[in-house]
């Protein structure tokens, strides 16, 4: 297959294929499920196939010129391929997990349609070289997110879905204004033609509204914990693999690869990140809803990613890129484990849980592995990412920064361990519970193993991250 074929295979297979899933579902649920997984796997395989060219510095690209100076194009450079691979890998596991999880609910066709479309939008977004197409894919993902959060169609879930939609779309509209301002300045929406363009602080602020709303960073974060009402695989998709990573990806694409910004943002952004990391970690410490705790954790960890990206030095960016991958895997695993628990005992309240390690041993081990990775302990991948981000923060020369994030890391240890011990240890709360659904068990085990092996064989992801950093040409 040619490079262009791979690009379109990566994007269009899930993007268009998703609409055939309801049709397939009407004939056979099994066929629909397999087709959904194959579509996401196709994206993963295509992204993997584009990797050698991206690493070699000759990325596949496709561009179509349109009237009035508009254009439409895709570029499979190292950063895009890295994101595409990470997202599609985690999404594949989540789709596999969904087989068991969703089979008891209505509207399964809609679920698979939205989940696969979501992945397609993500693939389109990361490979786009045009601000308008980025915006379009961004909004497609917002619509999918809206439907997935409101999947159960109860008044409360619909209210929360609306909240998520309004906040993220509101932010996106402000970002669109920023994109238009850039067009006024440069006369193009094509990112390839804007390398090194200096943007104003106002434009930066507008675009940041979109990024921070999608990446659930304070003060635009409150939709994320509320989105926990979605089915667990959808939550995992939103919080770990796709949605929240869109924001940090666009940040990296725009502000590390393309534009140059006022150095003041190297101070402002870490302050926002620090507040976001601490406030959300503090909230996680007192929450009793398992999914809300993990959601707050996502907000906190995203602050570390944004911190790394905004440090302005190689170590921080290196760490942040690794963090994106490690966090996707580990947090995806945590949400999936939470799904198994919720599915098994019918509650999300950790005060009603206890001793589940005896009843759900594999889930407990997988949860522990993923939690240790999020906490940043070896031999899991999160260790390298967290270490590098904190080192990057230290290298900025702003002495307050690294200690504050170490405090955040301490809080991460505390809330995740509190959660872990409340759920899995102590008096057995549900003696009749047992592990069931091999797809769900396999999925969480895969996430745990990926977390482990991504740490032991850190040379593999870090090799790719190194290529991305080199291609940025900044350091």
């Amino acid at each position, binding site marked *: 297959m040619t490079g262009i074929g791979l690009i379109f295979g990566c994007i269009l297979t899930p993007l268009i294929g998703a609409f055939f899933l309801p049709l397939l579902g009407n004939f056979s649920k099994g066929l629909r499920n397999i087709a959904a997984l194959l579509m996401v796997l196709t994206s993963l395989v295509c992204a993997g196939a584009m990797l050698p060219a991206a690493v070699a510095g000759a990325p596949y690209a496709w561009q179509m010129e349109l009237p009035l100076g508009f254009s439409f194009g895709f570029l499979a450079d190292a950063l895009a391929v890295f994101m595409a691979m990470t997202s599609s890998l985690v999404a594949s596991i989540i789709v596999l997990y969904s087989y068991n999880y969703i089979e008891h609910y209505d509207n399964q066709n809609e679920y698979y349609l939205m989940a696969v479309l979501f992945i397609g939008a993500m693939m389109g977004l990361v490979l786009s070289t045009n601000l308008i197409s980025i915006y379009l894919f961004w909004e497609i993902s917002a619509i999918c997110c809206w439907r997935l959060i409101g999947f159960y169609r109860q008044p409360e879930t619909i209210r929360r879905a609306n*909240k998520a939609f309004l*906040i993220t779309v509101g932010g996106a509209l402000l970002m669109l204004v920023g994109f238009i301002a850039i067009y006024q300045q440069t006369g193009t929406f094509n990112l390839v033609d804007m390398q090194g363009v200096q943007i104003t602080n106002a434009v930066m602020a507008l675009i940041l509204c979109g990024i921070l709303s999608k990446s659930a960073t*304070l*003060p635009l974060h*409150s*939709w994320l914990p509320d989105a926990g009402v979605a089915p667990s695989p959808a939550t995992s998709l939103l919080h770990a693999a796709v949605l929240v990573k869109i924001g940090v990806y666009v940040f990296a694409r725009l502000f590390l690869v393309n534009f140059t910004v006022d150095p003041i943002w190297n101070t402002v952004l870490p302050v926002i990140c620090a507040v976001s990391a*601490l*406030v*959300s*970690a*503090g*909230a996680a*410490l*007192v929450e009793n809803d398992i999914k809300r705790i993990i959601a707050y954790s996502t907000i906190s960890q995203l602050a570390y990613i944004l911190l790394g990206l905004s440090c302005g030095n*190689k*170590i921080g960016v*290196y760490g942040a890129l690794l963090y994106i991958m490690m966090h996707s895997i580990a947090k995806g695993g945590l949400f999936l484990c939470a799904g198994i628990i919720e599915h098994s005992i019918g509650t999300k309240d950790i005060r009603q849980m206890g*001793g589940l*390690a*005896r009843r759900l041993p594999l889930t*407990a*081990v997988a949860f*522990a592995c993923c939690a*240790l990775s999020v*906490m*940043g*302990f*070896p*031999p899991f991948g999160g*260790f*390298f990412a*967290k*270490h*590098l981000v*904190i*080192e990057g923060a*230290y*290298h900025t020369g702003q*002495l307050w920064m*690294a*200690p504050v994030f*170490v405090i955040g*890391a*301490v*809080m991460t*240890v*505390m809330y995740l*361990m*509190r959660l872990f*011990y*409340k759920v*899995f*240890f*102590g*008096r057995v709360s549900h003696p009749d519970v047992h592990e069931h659904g091999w797809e769900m068990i396999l999925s969480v085990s895969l996430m745990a193993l990926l977390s482990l092996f991504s740490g032991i064989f*850190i*040379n593999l992801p*870090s*090799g790719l991250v*190194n290529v991305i950093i080199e291609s940025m040409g900044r350091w």
Partner: protein
Amino acid sequence: MTGAEYTGLAAWLTAGNGVNLILALIVLPAILAAVCVVVPSPAFEVRSVIFGAALVLNLFFSICLLPIKNFTTLIPWGGLEMHFALRVYPLATTLICVSSLLLLLIGLYAVSYMQSRRYAAGCFAALLLSGAMVNGALLANNLIVLLFFWEGMLGVLLLGTSFLHTEEPEFALKAIISNGCADLLLLFGTVCAATSADSLSLQGISQIPLTGINWLGFICMLLGAAGKGGIFPFHSWVPGVAERADLPFVAYHVGVAQKVLSVYLLIRIIFEFYAVGAGSAASLVIMSIAALSIIATGLLALLQQTLRGVIAAVASTQTGLMLLAMGSGLPLGALGAATQIIAYAAIIGVLFLVAGAVERRTGTTDLDRIGGLGRLTPPVTVSFVVAAAALIGVPPLNGFFATELMLEAVWATNIIFYLFAILGLLLTGAVMLKVVHSVMFGELEMPESYTYRVNSIPGAMSLPLIILSIVCAAGGVLIHFPAAQLQNGMPFMGDLSYSGMPNSIWLVILFIIVLLLMGANHFYGVLRSGHPRGCLDHITYAPGLRHLFAKIEKGATDPYNWLMRGMNGLAAVCVAIDRGINYVYDAGIPAVITRCSAWFRAMSNGSLANHVAWSCAGLLVVVALVLLQIL
């Protein structure tokens, strides 16, 4: 030095850029740990054989390292200088051999101890993983590799304390959070050190001047390293884990492995990484932390109700003493601490194994329920007495010589801290005399159901005890062998020569007086209370001290509780901010929209006058914008 310069197995280990070294000492134990878990439970013998083979191989490969004087290897790994760099040199190899020997003996004991227990596979795996992590951390020549193995111990602690003991999560949670905090402090400290030295290589970090931000890095690294050793403020989790986790795991992981790693890294931090001179401010800070630790852990030991808890607490007191010696900044202090950790490993090994034997014989280590066991288990009693005497520093046992070295270093630096060291030894001595006397001597006391159990301590449990007791007894005579080996591994020693005997006869006499005071205190306490178990009542119920001990018992002086309270306060503030933001989205913005909507509805009431007014206002805005554009 390259691998080609060695012969035999040393050459094999160093061949191929040291890949065999990694395979033999790190990968092999880790893989065999996984195999132990995979082997089905009914095949206990098969699992035991695999476990035993792993332990023997580990010790064998460790001994093979001894001829290697200096070998470094570097394998590209994580980018940004995060190479998998290892270094084999005498300090590391000596400690690896000590750790491996203890692992073998404790492992042998564990095979018998765990036979009738649940989760034997988990315990075996935890022991082997601990061994692999210790080997990796001691061989690491890159800060990232060091942290990788060092912090990897947390996962093993999680396995050993939580998954194997699911009913009582609080003690394990405390252990994990305490260790996690210490590890994160170490992480920050390493970041500071690496930045200051502009190198991640351990050999590249040398004598960083203690100025400005380096102070913060130094303190964090120091506390992080000390945290593994159960030193203040990370000491309070140790007795809890020691009382509840499987004894072989406690004996090796908590009693030996963590302490060995802690002392090793502290030596490197104080004498290599940072410029800590004798009498410097840094020296004062270290010695103050050590003194605080000695007092805190010593008092904690007095309050322990179980044999396991007492041993864990006095083990922390010992690491406090070692830190005090290192804090002197004198090479003699480093040598004393390094020598003591070797002696200490054997002593603590014996003490924990004795606790296991007592538990096996009586079903408990609760000091109020057992007594006079000496006549039932003579080998255990002899081992217990020898190890306790060595821990206190009774000559000519191994603990005496190392303790004397440490005391000499502290005396030479600061007499006040010498008094703290003596106080620590007095507390340790008082507690050890109490437990030896009450558990092994006097009237027989044990739970009813265990009274008629005889021959319940099998040979596989007695043998490690006896071997380690012989090490404790004979180690004093042979102390200069490991001391010489350690000196080769510590280049900062310079031309310091150590003959194996104390340098100052006056300090020896002073120390013997202290030992006599311990004895006198014990007999006074026994006479006063009428029972060895109450021999410390005159201290714990002394006016003034009673309230202090009551506070300690309630956890008021526990730094872990302070941390939790502080974090709860911070969390309350964070939650208030978060709820405030949520309120804006959930109630504030909808309210504004509803008000605006109502206002617009009111403005658009079908009246012609209203419409004309709105149209005029709109027109004015458009004109204003056009004018602005033109001007």
